[in-house]
C-alpha cells in the first residue's frame, strides 16, 4: 500500500490540518482548549486524570457536542457534523474491537460503511493488516489476539476509513508493562509514516515524549503549556509537568542573581541563587539529583542552602528519593549509601544544597 492512501492531503498550508477550539461544560467542569495539528504531525495531549483530555478527543470525534468554539479540519468546518460523517479515525483506549467479527472484518467495517463493496473492503483491510504485520491473524477473533496485536488491528481499523485526523485515546494504557515498551516504539514508527494529522491523549509523559512531535499539556480543562517534547521537558511551567519530567520547579521574582520564590516568606531560605543575572517573573528548575543533603551546615561553598524537614523516603531506580518540606517542597535523589551515612529519617531537619550552576531559569 502506498502512503497516499492512508492520509488525505500532503499540503503544508495552515488550512490543511486540524484547527480547533473546544469549549464545553460538564457540571462544574469546564473544558476550554485550543488544539492544532498539521498534516503528518503527531500532537500529544498530556494531562492528569480529569483534566478533560479524553473529553476533548471525544469532541473531535463528534461523540460530544461543543458549547462554544469550532472544529476546522482540512479547511472544512465539522463542528456540527455527526460522528459518522467526519473524516476522523479513532483508536479507543481498550480498542473496542467488535467481538463477533474477525480481525479482517473489523478493519473492513469502516470501508463497508463508506459504501465499498464487500470484496473491495476486505481487500483494503487485508492490505492494512499486512502492513501492520498481521496478515496471518486476519481470521482471528479479537479475543484470540494479544494486547499489542489488538492495538494494531484497532489502528488498521481506524486508518481504513482514510481519515484526515487520527485520534488515539491512551493507546498504551491497556497493555502490560512488558508489552508497552516494544509497542510504543513500534507505534512511533507507524505514526511517523502517516500523513494525516494525529492527536493522541495520554497521562504518561514517556508516551508523549516518544510518540509526539508536539505536546499540549491540559490541566483542569485548560491548556497550560505547549511545545516540542524537549522544550516541555526542559522548561516545565506547572508543578504537574515538573513532576512528570522529574524537576523541582518554582516560580518567583528575579533580581540580579537572586530569585525570591513566590509564596514563601521573604527570608534567606526562600531565595534561590542563579549563576547568571535575570530580572522579572521567572521559573527556576533543577533536577533532584543535583541536590545534596547534609546533617551539619557545610562551610564556604557559594551555593543555595536551605534548612528543610524530611517528609519521606522512597526507592527511585538505584537512587533514593527524599521528599523534603519546610519553606518550600523539594525532592532530592541521593544514593542509598549517602542515606545510610547521614542516618536520615522522617521528621529530621537537614541542610539541602544546590549549586547555582545547576539551576535553570526561564521567563514565566
Amino acid at each position, binding site marked *: 500500500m502506498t502512503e497516499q492512501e492512508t492520509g488525505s492531503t500532503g499540503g503544508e498550508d495552515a488550512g490543511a490540518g486540524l484547527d480547533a477550539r473546544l469549549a464545553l461544560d460538564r457540571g462544574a467542569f469546564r473544558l476550554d482548549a485550543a488544539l492544532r495539528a498539521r498534516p503528518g504531525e503527531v500532537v500529544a495531549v498530556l494531562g492528569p486524570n480529569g483534566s478533560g483530555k479524553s473529553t476533548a478527543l471525544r469532541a473531535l470525534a463528534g461523540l460530544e457536542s461543543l458549547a462554544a468554539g469550532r472544529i476546522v479540519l482540512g479547511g472544512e468546518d465539522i463542528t456540527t457534523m455527526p460522528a459518522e*460523517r467526519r473524516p*476522523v479515525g479513532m483508536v*479507543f483506549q481498550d480498542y473496542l474491537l467488535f467481538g463477533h467479527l474477525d480481525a479482517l472484518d473489523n478493519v473492513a*467495517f469502516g470501508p463497508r460503511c463508506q459504501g465499498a463493496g464487500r470484496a473491495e473492503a476486505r481487500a483494503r483491510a487485508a492490505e492494512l493488516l499486512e502492513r501492520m504485520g498481521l496478515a496471518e491473524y486476519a481470521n482471528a477473533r479479537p479475543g484470540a489476539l494479544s494486547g499489542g496485536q489488538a492495538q494494531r488491528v484497532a489502528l488498521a481499523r*481506524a486508518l481504513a476509513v482514510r481519515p484526515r485526523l487520527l485520534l488515539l485515546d491512551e493507546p498504551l494504557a491497556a497493555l502490560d508493562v512488558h508489552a508497552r515498551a516494544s509497542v510504543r516504539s513500534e507505534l512511533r514508527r507507524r505514526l511517523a509514516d502517516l500523513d494525516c494529522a494525529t492527536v493522541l491523549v495520554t497521562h504518561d509523559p514517556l508516551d508523549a515524549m516518544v510518540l509526539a512531535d508536539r505536546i499540549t499539556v491540559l490541566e483542569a480543562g485548560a491548556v497550560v503549556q505547549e511545545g516540542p517534547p524537549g522544550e516541555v521537558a526542559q522548561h516545565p511551567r506547572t508543578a504537574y509537568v515538573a513532576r512528570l519530567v522529574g524537576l523541582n520547579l518554582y516560580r518567583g521574582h528575579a533580581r540580579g542573581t537572586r530569585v525570591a520564590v513566590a509564596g514563601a516568606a521573604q527570608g534567606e531560605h526562600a531565595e534561590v541563587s542563579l549563576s547568571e543575572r535575570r530580572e522579572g517573573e521567572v521559573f527556576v528548575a533543577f533536577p533532584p539529583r543535583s541536590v545534596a543533603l547534609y546533617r551539619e551546615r557545610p562551610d564556604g561553598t557559594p551555593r543555595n542552602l536551605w534548612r528543610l524537614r524530611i517528609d519521606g523516603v522512597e526507592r527511585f531506580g538505584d537512587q533514593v528519593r527524599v521528599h523534603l518540606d519546610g519553606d518550600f517542597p523539594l525532592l532530592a535523589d541521593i544514593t542509598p549509601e549517602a542515606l545510610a551515612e547521614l542516618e536520615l529519617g522522617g521528621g529530621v531537619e537537614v541542610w539541602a544544597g544546590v549549586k547555582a550552576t545547576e539551576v535553570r531559569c526561564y521567563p514565566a
Partner: protein
Amino acid sequence: MTRASPPSEAAGGRLRVRAGRFPWLLVVPALIGLAFLVLPFAGLLARAPWATLGTRLLLPEVRGALWLSLTTATAATAVAVVLGVPLAWLLARAEFPGRRVARALVTVPLVIPPVVGGVALLLALGRRGILGRHLDEWFGLTLPFTPVAVVIAQVFVAMPFLVISVEGALRGADRRYEEAAATLGASRAVVFRRVTLPMVGPGVLAGAVLAWARALGEFGATITFAGNFPGRTQTMPLAIYLAMQESPESAIVLSLVLLGVSLLILVALRDRWVGAV
C-alpha cells in the same frame, strides 16, 4: 490427546484440591425449587393413560390443534421480534418524554389476567372495537375467530417477555462499541444492525424462546379474542381445556403431547443455536 493425558490424569486424581464446605444454604433451596417445578409434571406422568397415547396423537383434531399451536406460536414470536426489538431499543436508548410510562405500559400484559387481555383486544380490534370497527368498514376485515386473531392474542401476551429481555441486554451492552462504529462511518441504523444486534444477540434469543414458550401455552386471551373453533382457532391449550370438561385423562394426554413437543423443540434449538455461541 493420548500422549499428553496419562500423566495429567494421574496427577489430577491424587492432587486435586478438595472442595470446601458443601454449600447447603444454596443447594437445599435449589433442590426444593426444582422439585416444586417438576412435581406437578410428575403428577401428569403418573396419571397418564399411556395405552391410548399413540391413538390420541393420530386423531386429526389433535394434530390440527398441535400444528396450529406450533405455527401460530412461531408466527407470534416472529412478530414479537420484529416489533419488540426496536421497541426495546427505543426504551433503552432513546430519550423521550414519557419513557418511564411507556416502559411500565409494556409490562401491562404480564400483569392483567389474559382473559381480560382478550376482552381488551376485542374492544380494540373486534368487530365493534375502536380500531376494528374501521377495519370492518373500510376493508371488510374482521379479526376475531381467525388464526390471525390467535397470533395477535399470543403477541399481546408474549411480546413483553421479549422486550424486557432485549431491553436488559441493551442496557448491559457497552455503548462505546456503538461509538466506535459511529467513528468508522456507520449510521445509527447500521450501528444497530451490525454492532448492537450482534452484541445483544443472546438476549434476543433468550427473549424469543421465552416469548415462544409463552405463546405456545397461551389460553385466556386466545379463547376470548379468537374464540375456539377446531382447525381454525383451537390451539392445544384450548383443546386441553375442553377435553378437561369431559375426560381428564385425555386432557392429560394432550398436555403431555404439548409438553413433549415444546421440550423437544427447545432442546433442539438450544443445541443448534445457543450451544454454538
